[in-house]
Every structure is written in C-alpha cells, then in structure tokens.
C-alpha cells in the first residue's frame, strides 16, 4: 500500500526532473519583437549570412510579441540575465539609456555605415551612440481614388493644406450618409505630429522644466483636428461604434485615412483603387518618425561581437534586401539603390511619398515617465473628441499632468 504511494511519488519526481535545459553557451542572445510572428524566417536568413561572414560567433534568436516584449526584457534585466543584443523602440530607448542598461557603442560603429543621419541621432543619448536605428515607418494620407473620382475631385497633392483636405472631405461626405470624408484620429500621437505641423506648439519649454502644451498655438492645433468631427466629415468614436477605422477604409466608405505604411499589405486586396500622399500641412510639413533600434546590453560579455551583429543587422546590404523583399519594415539607411524593388511594388503607386515624408520627421516627445504621460494626455484629448471637454480645458489639465511628471 505504502509502496504504491511511493511509486507514484517516484514517478512524479522522475517526471519533474525531465528537462530540456538549454546547453550553456557563450554565443550571442538576440531578443526581438519585430520579427514576431511573420518574419522569423527572414531573420534566420540574416543570422545565417552573419554567421557565415563571422565564423566562431553564433546568434541565438529569442522573440516575443510586442505586447509582452518589454515586460520580458525587464524581467531579464532584473534577474541579471539581459540578452546580449535586443530591440528597442524609440519611446523606450530613453528610459533604457538613462538607466545604464545599454552599452555605448560609439567606438564600434564604422564611420561609413550608411545610416540616415536623423535616424542615427535619434538613438544617441547624452552625445553617445547607445543604439543603432534598425527600421523606420511613418504615417501618410491614404485616399480612396474611386471616391475621389465619384466626387469629381483632384487627387491630393504634396502641397495640400488641411483646408484643402476639408473641402475634399465635405465633397465626399456629400456622396452618401454612410460615406465619410476623412479619418485622422484625435489622440496623442496625432496631436504631437499636428503640433509640429503647426510649428509653434511645443510640449515643453526650452529647458524641459515646464510644459507649454496649453499655449494658444496648441489649442488652435487641437481645434483644427476637432474641426473635422465638428463639420461632420469624420466619425466620432460613438459614430464609429466599434468598427475599426482601418475596417472603415477597407469597406470603401472612407475617402481619406491617415494611417501607417505598415498597412500597405493589409490594404493590398482592397476592392477599390487607392494611393498615398504625404500629409497635408498646417504651416509646414511634419510626419511621424517611428523607429526601432538595436542596442547592446551594458552587461554583455562579448561587446565586440555583439556590436558587430547589431551593425550587420541594421545596415548590411543582405539585411536590407531581406527586409525589403519581405515587406518587413524599412531599413533606416540612406542608400536609394536598396529601395528600388520596394518603390516598384504597387499598390500604392506613390511609394516615394514614404521618403518624402522622411524629410520632415518628428519624433514623439519623450520623458522618463513616458507611458504615464502618453496615457494621461491621450485620455484628455479623447475627451475633447467625445465632446466632454473643451480644447483649452483639456490642455490646461494636460499641462498640470505633465508638470507633475517631469519634476
């Protein structure tokens, strides 16, 4: 009787000690989110090319979906086991750099690496190169060419202002009660970009001690954004009623849509003709510059190898061509020849708009308590969109919030 019990206990114990522990090795660990889930094989291609060119170094890839990535990365850093090389998006870069988790790789980067200067700058901290720009994406104006034809309008040009957009939107809206003119969401990310288009609205004062988000220029910017809802050419959250904005565009019921270039493949099979154009301006052009970077951990045991991998991944021709061939974001490189194949794909036809947008890049305002600022300001701005707060009130409250976060 007791024997049976011990037998079961032993079996359990045996089962527990079964393990598939990884062999301890001194190769490089690379942690990524952007390869997840569609581009793991593409990444393997790049890894293989690197390993061939650098015998003696092996790269082990770990990956996680974006939503969980930073939690896992932090857990690794906390438990003293950070990956040798890992990805960071721009918003999180400052926090990691400020907390001594990144290695200064200024000395490892070759001077003739073909990065976009602005992109390289974005990943510097206190004058030192703390990460290398891996890829970038931006936001453009998508438009439904068929609806424009129906309304007898000319397609958007690269000199449009938001007034031009309003005119077009009103014409398209008049086509039917379930057809909308434009969608440019009223939220945090759009706001800081429109603020840059305004040119006079700044989030902070010169020495970052106070927020100036409630200035007159900023209130004007927010009002411009709201005008589209107020003129009934853009659906409010309740009018959208849970339908995703990209779904609305895909259903052919939206004339213009401000969205990211990552949607190119999603819209490829849309049952209507569409194209892109750079965004209209307020006083000047400004476009989102979303960037991912690759950093080396400050606790790595193989800084040279790690930096070599980081550079290869971000700037080698192999890496660039693999990325472009598989629509896996755009390398942040100043090499027009690499992009020929990308530019010749359609839709959309006007892919040069992507690079035009790069000429007026705007990065998000970043502070240490980034997520709290984003959430808080976004909550206030969406209240304006819902009509429960005036622009002035919302931005006044935003100023108080940001001030409390930066002290």
């Amino acid at each position, binding site marked *: 009787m007791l024997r049976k019990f011990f037998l079961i206990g032993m079996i359990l114990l045996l089962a527990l000690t079964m393990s598939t522990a990884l062999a301890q090795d001194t190769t490089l660990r690379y942690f990524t989110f952007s390869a997840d889930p569609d581009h793991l094989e593409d990444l393997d291609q790049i890894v293989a090319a690197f390993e061939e060119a650098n015998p003696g170094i092996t790269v082990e890839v770990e990956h996680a979906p974006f939503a969980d990535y930073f939690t896992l990365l932090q857990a690794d850093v906390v438990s003293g086991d950070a990956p040798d090389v890992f990805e960071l998006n721009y918003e999180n870069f400052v926090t990691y750099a400020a907390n001594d988790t990144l290695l200064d790789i200024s000395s490892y980067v070759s001077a003739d690496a073909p990065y976009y200067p602005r992109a390289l700058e974005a990943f510097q901290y206190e004058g030192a190169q703390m990460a290398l720009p891996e890829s970038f994406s931006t936001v453009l104006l998508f438009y439904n060419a068929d609806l424009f034809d129906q309304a007898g309008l000319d397609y958007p040009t690269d000199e449009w202002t938001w007034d031009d957009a309003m005119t077009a939107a009103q014409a398209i809206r008049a086509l039917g009660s379930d057809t909308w003119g434009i969608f440019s969401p009223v939220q945090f990310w759009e706001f800081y970009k429109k603020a840059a288009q305004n040119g006079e609205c700044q989030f902070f004062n010169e020495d970052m001690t106070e927020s100036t988000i409630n200035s007159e220029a900023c209130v004007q910017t927010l009002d411009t954004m709201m005008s589209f809802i107020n003129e009934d050419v853009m659906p409010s959250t309740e009018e959208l009623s*849970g339908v995703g904005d990209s779904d609305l565009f895909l259903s052919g019921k939206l004339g213009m849509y401000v969205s990211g270039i990552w949607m190119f493949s999603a819209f490829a099979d849309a049952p209507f003709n569409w194209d892109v154009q750079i965004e209209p301006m307020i006083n000047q052009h400004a476009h989102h510059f979303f960037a991912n970077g690759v950093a080396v951990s400050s606790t790595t045991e193989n800084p040279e190898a790690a930096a070599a991998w980081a550079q290869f991944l971000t700037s080698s021709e192999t890496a660039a061509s693999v990325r472009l061939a598989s629509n896996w974001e755009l390398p942040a490189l100043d090499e027009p020849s690499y992009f020929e194949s990308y530019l010749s794909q359609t839709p959309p036809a006007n892919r040069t708009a992507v690079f035009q947008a790069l000429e007026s890049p705007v990065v998000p305002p970043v502070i240490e308590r980034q*997520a709290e600022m984003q959430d808080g300001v976004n909550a206030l701005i*969406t209240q304006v969109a819902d009509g429960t707060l005036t622009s002035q009130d919302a931005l006044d409250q935003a100023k108080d919030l940001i001030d409390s976060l930066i002290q």
Partner: protein
Amino acid sequence: MRVMVAGDTGWQKWKWVLFFIVPSLAGLLIFILIPILTSVWLSFQDWNLLSPPEFIGLANFQELVNDASFWQALQYTLGYILLYLPAAFVLGLGLALLLNQKLRGVVIVRTATFLPVVASWVVVSLIWKWIFNPQYGLINYGLSLLGISGPAWLFDANTALYALVITSVWKDLGYVAVLYLGGLQSISPIYYEASQIDGASAWQRLWFITLPLLTPTMFFIVIILLINSFQVFDQFWLMPMRDSAADRQVEAIVTAVVKNAFSYNRMGYASAMSMVLFALIFIVTFVQLRLQNRWVHYESE
C-alpha cells in the same frame, strides 16, 4: 467521546502532521510566501526595474491615499462585486441543482455551460464586445424589438459595469456550478431516501436537507468568489471600448496594479497597491470566517 488511538499524541502525532503538511507548506513557502514578502518589501521602495530599488518609506502609501484614480478603481471593483457575487452565487446554485438531476441530455448541458469557463477571456471579450455593440449588437437589437432604445454599454462609463457583470456571470456560471456539484454529490443519498419515506416534497428536501448539508460548499464558494472578484482583471482590461469614456474611467484595482507595474515601470507603487488590496480581501474574508459558525454546518464536528 472521541476514540483515542495509540500514537495520537506527542511526537507520533506530529510525525504524521508533518508528513501530510510539509510538501505543501514547503512549496508554499518557497514559491509563494517568499515572493509575497518580496512584494511587501517592494511596497516601501521606488523601483523602475532597470535600476536598483530605492527606499522611500511610506511614500507610496501616501501617494495612494491621494490618488483619485485608485479610489475610482476601488469604487468600480466594489460595484462589480456587489452585482456579480450574488448573481453568480444564486444562479450557480440553481444551475447545479438542475445539472444534478438524472435528466436526458444533462451531460450535454453540463458541457455546454462549461464551455465559456474554458474559453480564454481574449476570445470571450471579443465576442461579447460585439454582442453589446450599441449599433450592431444583438442585445440592443433585441431591446429595439421591445421598443427600448439600448444604452451605449461598453462606451459609457456607467453602463459598462453592467455589461462586464453580465459577461462575467455568463462565463463563470459553469465554474460555480462545478463547485456546487462537487458538494451536492457528496451528500449521502441516505438522507434523501429517508425523507422520501417521510413523504417530503421537493422543496422540503431542498430546504431541509440539501441546503444545510451544502453549507460547507457554499462557504467555500463565497470565499472563492470574494477573493477572485476583488482581483478581477481580464474583463476590465479587455472589454471597455478603446478611447471611449468607459476606457478612460472604468478600472479595477488589479488593472491599475498591472498598469503601474508593467506599463509605467513603477513596481514599488504597484506593490503598495497590492498590499492595500490584500488587506481589504483579508479583512472581508476574516469576517466571513468568523461568521461561518453561525450558518455553516460541518458533519464532522
């Protein structure tokens, strides 16, 4: 008088007690108690996970007292409990009594009611967000047939709570019923046989036999439901419609904890919040434990 057995006292007894309890207790200590104590320690620190923690005494708790969003989260959590718990408790019992019968097809019903329990909240929230959609959803469509104009459900901060409770009860009903069934099946049929001889009706059987003998299970369920619903998370995280008033305002305590811990990198503050939550749950449970002598009937004592 309780029968005394050789080896029932002193070291002999303790040998047995240890034998039975040490595996569980040791594991609890290592994998749960130590992490809890770590969390307690963290609640007095300021820690952004990337740099070493910094001792700040009671500052987190002071901030918590003045944090309007925390009090709002507490309000919503309590509101959720007040609506959800009685519904789950009573309806779960009704379902269990039904499923305990020898009726044809009861296995199908049992499995069907367990299906929502087994599905992940990710999927369930997607489905019910559509059902509650003010314009396209089933519920408002049904209401419109009755001439009622349905509310904005998951867009509106007030009605969102009701949508969350309804979805939660739908999902957990099978779970509560399973817990009840375990208890129902433990009631010896002897009692029922005897009552039949005495000519008792179904209602009398329920009231005088089933319920009293079910009280240990009911006590267990009340405690579990309380502990779980104070820590409600998934539905509050997943269901309010993005960028709506509900999304901005409707929060539970644990969603606030997760946000602070993993999005805002404020591990110390999140730990402090968890400590307050723990204290709340502990007090409520302790009260229940004290009260159990009044209504719970254990056969063995």
